[in-house]
C-alpha cells in the first residue's frame, strides 16, 4: 500500500484487506475525530437504516455483511460497537469502518462497544495484533484514542433506541445520556459503563449483578418502563452472541443483533443485520461466514481455541 492520504485510494485498498501504513491510520483517525467530536452522546439517525451488531475483527465476514446489506455509501449503516478483538483482522476491520465514516459521514454511524477500550483490547487481541503487524504500539494508541470519541448510543427516528450493551439504573430518560462526559476510557461503573456492558435477562425482575463483572442484568419491568417513558418502539442492542444471528427479548420490546458469523471461528453461529425501513418496520437478513475461497487468510493465530 503506498502512503497516500487519498481517502478513495485508502478505501479501495482496505476493501482488499490491505493493511494501511501507520501514517495513514493516524490521518484517518484525525479526520474521524473531527466528525465524532460533533456527534452527541445519542446520535439521531434517520430511517431507512441497517443496524449491525458486533463484528470483532472478522474482516471477510464484514465483507459478506456489505454484500447482503448493501453497498456502503448507498445503504445507511449503524454499527453498534465491538469492531475489534477476537478476529484476526481488527485493524483492517476497524479502519475500513472508520474510513467509510470519513467518506460517507451521514451514511455510516459508529457507536462504542465495551471492546473499544484500552483495558479490554490488551486482553482480547487488538493490542497484540497491532504489535504483531506494526512492531510497536502506536497504531493501538491512535485507535484507542479515537475510541474515546465514539458516541454511546443512537436513536432511529426517536423510536428505536440503539446501544451496545443495554440499560443503566442511572438512566431513565434518554436525554439524561447527554450529561455524560464520554471522552474517556470506559469506566468500571456508572452510566457509561452500564450502557456498554449490561445484558437483558428474562429471569431478572429489575436489576441484578452482571456475571461479566461490569454493568447489570436488567429485566422486563425495566425495559417496559424505559420504552414507555421514552416512547420507544423497541431497543436494539448487540453484545451477546446469538446462535441464529438475532434474538428477541421481553415480547419483542428488545432485540439483540449479532453480526459476527462463526464467532471466533469456533461458535458456528449465524449472523444478521437488522433492516429498518422508512415506516420503521424492521426485518432481519441472516448470513453465514464467508466461505474459505473468499477468505484471503494471511495471519493465523497459533494458540489453540480448544482444550487440547
Amino acid at each position, binding site marked *: 500500500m503506498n502512503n497516500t492520504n487519498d481517502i478513495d485510494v485508502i478505501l479501495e485498498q482496505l476493501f482488499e484487506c490491505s493493511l494501511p501504513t501507520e501514517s495513514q491510520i493516524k490521518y484517518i483517525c484525525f479526520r474521524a475525530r473531527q466528525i465524532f467530536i460533533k456527534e452527541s452522546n445519542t446520535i439521531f439517525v434517520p430511517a431507512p437504516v441497517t443496524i449491525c451488531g458486533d463484528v470483532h475483527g472478522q474482516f471477510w465476514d464484514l465483507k459478506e455483511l456489505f454484500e447482503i446489506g448493501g453497498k456502503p455509501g448507498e445503504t445507511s449503516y449503524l454499527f453498534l460497537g465491538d469492531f475489534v478483538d477476537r478476529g484476526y483482522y481488527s485493524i483492517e476491520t476497524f479502519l475500513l469502518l472508520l474510513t467509510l465514516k470519513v467518506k460517507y459521514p451521514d451514511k455510516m454511524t459508529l457507536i462504542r462497544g*465495551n*471492546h473499544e477500550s484500552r*483495558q*479490554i483490547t490488551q*486482553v*482480547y*487481541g487488538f493490542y*497484540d495484533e497491532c504489535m504483531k503487524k506494526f512492531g510497536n504500539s502506536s497504531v493501538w494508541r491512535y485507535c484507542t484514542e479515537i475510541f474515546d470519541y465514539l458516541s454511546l448510543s443512537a436513536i432511529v427516528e426517536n423510536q428505536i433506541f440503539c446501544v451496545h450493551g443495554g440499560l443503566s439504573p442511572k438512566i431513565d430518560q434518554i436525554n439524561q445520556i447527554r450529561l455524560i462526559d464520554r471522552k474517556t476510557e470506559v469506566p468500571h461503573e456508572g452510566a457509561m459503563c452500564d450502557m456498554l456492558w449490561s445484558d437483558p435477562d428474562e429471569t431478572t425482575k429489575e436489576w441484578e449483578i452482571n*456475571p*461479566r*463483572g461490569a454493568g447489570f442484568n436488567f429485566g422486563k419491568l425495566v425495559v417496559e418502563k424505559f420504552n414507555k417513558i421514552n416512547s420507544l418502539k423497541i431497543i436494539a442492542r448487540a453484545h*451477546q*452472541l446469538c*446462535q441464529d444471528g438475532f434474538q428477541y427479548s421481553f415480547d419483542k420490546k428488545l432485540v439483540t443483533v449479532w453480526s459476527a458469523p*462463526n*464467532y*471466533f*471461528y*469456533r*461458535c*458456528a*453461529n449465524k449472523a444478521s443485520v437488522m433492516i429498518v425501513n422508512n415506516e420503521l418496520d424492521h426485518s432481519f437478513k441472516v448470513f453465514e461466514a464467508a466461505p474459505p475461497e473468499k477468505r484471503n487468510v494471511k495471519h493465523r493465530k*497459533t*494458540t*489453540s*481455541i*480448544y*482444550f*487440547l
Partner: protein
Amino acid sequence: MKNQSNKESVRGTGNSAALCKLSSVQKGYYADPFIQYFVQKKEKVEPIMNRGFYMRVHAMDRLISQFLNANSESSEGVQIIQLGGGKDTTFWRLRLSGENEVVNKLVWYEIDFPRTIQEKLRIISRVPKLQEPIVGWPNKVLKKTSKGAELHSPDYHLICGDLRKTEDLHNSLQEHGVNFEIPTLFISECVLVYVEPNSADKLLGYITETFKLPFFVLYEPTNPLDNFGKQMMKNLSKMGCPLLAIEQYNSIESQIKRFQKLGFNYVDVKNMKLLWDTLGKWEAENVDGQKERKRIIRLEWFDELEEWNMIMSHYFVLYAAKNDQISQEKFIKIFGL
C-alpha cells in the same frame, strides 16, 4: 482431507496444553512451579483458556487426590499410569504438596510417543528442580532402549510406547515392575479421543482384564453433533489432530456404556459446565467453594460467557473403577465429584 491424523500435530496438542496451563498459573488461577520449564515459547492465551484449564486441572487433581485417599490403606502402595501425559507435571506437584502420605507409596508411570519422552528427558536433564525427587538420577535411572531413552527410577517411569500396541505396552509395564494386583489409576487427559476407537477399546479391555483393581480418569471433548461440535471437528481436522474416537462415542451416555461394556463396573461422569456451575457448592475438605469461585472470577476480565458455556458443555470428566469390594454408592462417595 477429513480425519487425517498427523502424529506430530497430535503430539503438538501436549505443547498447547502446557502453554495454556502456564498461562493459567501465571495469571494466578492455580499453583504449579514446574510447568514453566516445559514451555519454550510463551504466547498470549485468552481468559477462556486460562479458566478452562484451571477447571481441567482442578478436576483431574481432585480425582487423583480422591483415588489416593480411597486407597491409602493399601499396604503395597498404589500406582498411577498416565497415558500420553506429554508435558504434565503432576508427578512433581504431588511430591511438592506433601498432602497425601500415600504419595510415599505411589509409583508413577508415563507412557508416551518416543519423541515426547525424549523431549521430557532433555528438559529434566537441564533443570535440577525436576531432578530432585527422582531417586538415582541420572546414572541409575536413564536407560537406552530400541525405541529411545527411558527413565526408570523406583517410583517414576517414563516409557516410550504406542497406546495402540497393547502387547508391547504390557511387556514394558511388566518389565518395569508394575504390580497388577494393587490399586492402579489410569489417566487419559485428552488422549484416547485422538486414538482410533477400536484400539482405544482394546486398551481399556486390556486394563480391566489384566489389573485387579483398576481405576480410570478420562477428560475429553464430547458431542460432535451440534453446530459447535461440528465446527470443532472441522477445525481440529484442519489442524491435523482429528478426534478419531468421538464419532463412535459421541455422547456422555455412550461413553458410560463403553466403559461398562469394557469391564468397569462403576462409571460416573460430570460435564465440565456442571462442574463450574457447582463450584460454589462443593463439600470438599478445606475448600470453600464459594470463596474459590469468587476468587477465580476476580482474576481477570472475562467477556466470553456465552462461549464459556458452549465450550465447557462440550467437555466432560469420567471416572470409573472395576472393584468388586465396594458398593456403587460408596464408589461415588469416595471417588466422585
